[in-house]
């Protein structure tokens, strides 16, 4: 990297204290003006004797907000003025103190939500200050992140196996964690369940990435294929009694067919028009599922979907006559967690297949044609690439992976209903793809962790959870509009030395 040597002599100029303070005070006053009506008063259901509504006041919260914003702004201003290391240390100290208090509750705080937000604020300030302190002079943080993304891509051969090993060991690691914290070895059902949820979204993100990241088609209705997969499995299993492994490919095929049927009329459109129509198709599927009661069970959904079996050996305490249960097969005690761990490995396998496919297809002519179509469709036509068929394959393949994920969802839940396939799911999956950096496989994992796990961890925040999530999204999009790890490495090189950019 071109780290400027001569030019990077830090220019020490005096800190403009008055300007810094003035700005922070103004921002504090703005906070006061905003927080007073919105946070300061709370309407209650009780009324006075004369029928007036009774208001609760929360001036402590307002004061906390104003002081926190004032201090945070002051710190960020100082960072901009070049006072970096001291601010970083102080912010991390505040962060540590507040976090410790949040966990141990030594000093009782009247409002846990406020305290959590303060912890997040201190973290952001500390992160920004440290980042600016450590990054070379004259580079923007986004440029540094570009280098990080390129570096991660270069070290992918190392990172990918390590990540894979971690993912494989994860259930046992939770057991070891329990052992280390003084209990006995027990795989944490909650943690593994969370892992299953995360991997489901990673898989969906990787699937959607084929349409959005590679082929460059903004699909707002991806959840439709997820739904088709889930209902395919549910209906095949309930009506014909077919097992999971027989239904999985069929669900994929049916979802791919749905992709082709939906894609055929839509693919003539471009850009925003395309996005709106896919959104509409996503809703059509959901509305059909809701209203076609005789076939899909309508809004009540379908229940009693068979749970997955270990290649025919069910995960049950008391298996049916003539069947061997999983724990009997291996001579284990029955434990509910077996099924969860099996589901975990199942979705890990499915997600890995999606990832492997994407990595391979990028090096095949079809994948290159997808990317070329994203770049310039007219040029593709002039090179003899059939744009319609090429887009259709992208649509069908992505839909197929959505279908796989859907049938996994059905077997995991044992129940499907149209409720699970609303637009918000599509938006969430798209957010993962966009946030991670379009086309970046690792970025999608990172974004899925942010989007799925953080809201889970901050469940304590209750109603503030989605607020914090939204704030985080806005911050990241301001910082990295093209996504966290947006970086594209060529799929083949001529001069192995790396070339330039």
């Amino acid at each position: 990297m071109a780290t400027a040597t001569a030019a990077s002599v830090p220019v020490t100029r005096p800190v403009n204290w008055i300007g810094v303070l003035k700005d922070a005070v103004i921002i504090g006053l703005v906070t006061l003006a905003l927080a007073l009506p919105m946070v300061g008063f709370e309407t209650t259901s009780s009324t006075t004797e004369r029928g007036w509504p009774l208001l609760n006041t929360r001036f402590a919260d307002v004061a906390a907000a104003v002081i926190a914003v004032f201090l945070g702004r002051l710190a960020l201003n100082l960072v901009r003025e070049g006072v970096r290391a001291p601010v970083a240390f102080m912010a991390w100290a505040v962060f540590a103190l507040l976090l410790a208090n949040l966990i141990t509750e030594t000093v009782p705080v009247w409002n846990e939500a406020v305290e959590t937000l303060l912890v997040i604020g201190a973290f952001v300030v500390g992160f920004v200050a440290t980042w600016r302190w450590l990054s070379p002079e004259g580079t923007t943080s986004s440029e540094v992140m570009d280098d990080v993304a390129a570096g991660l891509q270069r070290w992918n051969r190392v990172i990918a196996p390590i990540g894979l090993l971690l993912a494989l060991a994860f259930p046992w690691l939770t057991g070891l964690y329990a052992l280390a914290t003084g209990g006995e070895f027990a795989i944490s059902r909650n943690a593994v369940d969370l892992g299953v949820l995360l991997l489901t979204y990673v898989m969906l993100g990787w699937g959607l990435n084929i349409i959005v990241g590679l082929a460059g088609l903004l699909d707002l209705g991806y959840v439709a294929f997820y739904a088709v997969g889930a209902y395919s499995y549910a209906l095949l299993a309930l009506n014909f009694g077919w097992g999971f492994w027989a239904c999985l490919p069929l669900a994929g095929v049916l979802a791919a067919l749905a992709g082709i049927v939906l894609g055929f009329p839509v693919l003539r459109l471009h850009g925003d028009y395309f996005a709106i129509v896919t959104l509409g198709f996503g809703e059509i599927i959901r509305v059909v599922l809701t209203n076609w009661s005789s076939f899909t069970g309508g809004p009540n959904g379908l229940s009693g979907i068979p749970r997955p079996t270990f290649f025919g050996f069910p995960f049950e305490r008391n298996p049916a006559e003539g069947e061997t249960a999983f724990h009997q097969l291996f001579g284990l005690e029955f434990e509910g967690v077996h099924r969860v761990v099996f589901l975990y490995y199942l979705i890990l396998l499915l997600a890995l297949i999606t990832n492997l496919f994407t990595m391979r297809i990028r090096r095949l002519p079809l994948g290159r044609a997808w990317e070329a179509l994203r770049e310039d469709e007219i040029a593709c036509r002039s090179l003899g690439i059939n744009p319609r068929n090429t887009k259709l394959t992208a649509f069908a393949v992505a839909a197929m992976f959505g279908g796989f994920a859907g049938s996994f969802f059905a077997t995991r839940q044992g129940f499907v209903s149209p409720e699970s396939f609303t637009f918000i799911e599509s938006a969430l999956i798209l957010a993962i793809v966009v946030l991670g950096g379009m086309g970046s496989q690792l970025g999608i994992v990172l974004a899925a962790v942010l989007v799925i796990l953080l809201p889970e961890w901050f469940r304590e925040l209750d109603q503030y959870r989605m607020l914090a999530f939204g704030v985080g999204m806005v911050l990241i999009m301001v910082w990295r509009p093209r996504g966290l790890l947006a970086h594209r490495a060529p799929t083949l090189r001529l001069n192995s030395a790396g070339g330039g950019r």
Partner: protein
Amino acid sequence: MSGDLPAERGPTDPAAATWDRVPPLLTVEHLTMRFGGLTAVDDVSFIAGQREITAIIGPNGAGKTTVFNCLTGFYRPTAGRLSLERGDGTHYLLERMEGFRIAREARVARTFQNIRLFPQMSVLENLIVAQHNKLMLASGYTVLGLFGIGGYREAERAAVEKAKFWLDRVGLTARADWDAGNLPYGDQRRLEIARAMCTEPALLCMDEPAAGLNPRESLELNQLLLSIRDDDGVGVLLIEHDMSVVMGISDHVIVLDYGRKIADGTPVEVRNDPTVIRAYLGEEESDELPPEVAAYLGIAPDAGTQ
């Protein structure tokens, strides 16, 4: 080149009737393209010969790019017939084919007036994408390639070799791994030509390849085009404003004005054609060309009777 075409050639004459040069590659007959009430191309007929560089010139708005868009399937002509006869005896009617089939089967490649590369893909990848159909076949339409069965690896290696060959021809080998969008303008122009050539075309249509090039780059382009004609045996159809390119390398020039063909012949014939001079200068009758116009058309000030 004999160049002694009959002097009387009204714009409605099918050019085929009087063609006596090299074997024809592309025959355009009565091509008409209307957009609503506007007739962009009006009954144009011409022939582009095999292993020849044919230039289409004309003032702005004369319909040159529209002719190209009809040829390469971006527009469906209102009327007319576009037939391509390759040297191997195969014969295609372009006006009946979809755009991508014209490129894939008839092998008509084109470059664009405003360069259309795949900017976020590397230079090498741009050239590999150009060989899509061949590679698609080799990878068993992806299915075999996914599982590593069949000769895809060999085919890809051959494709890379071909790309290397063209990178060498256009002098971009050192920048093969750059993102195409980061190349300087002149390099992007040359890359687009290399990409078109990687499709192994029978006819290469180029829309103002010299636009925005400096004189040295323009000269290099001339050499490249001559070499494409002579060494690769590809017919070139060229829209160009740069008269040093047109007059310097074309074997045959067609002049359009307001959608009609007003002249057709060798560069020497065309640049001395009074109709052409009038189209470029306006109706005003004058024997003497202003010196800058004469220089533009490549006429020596006293060369009226050459």
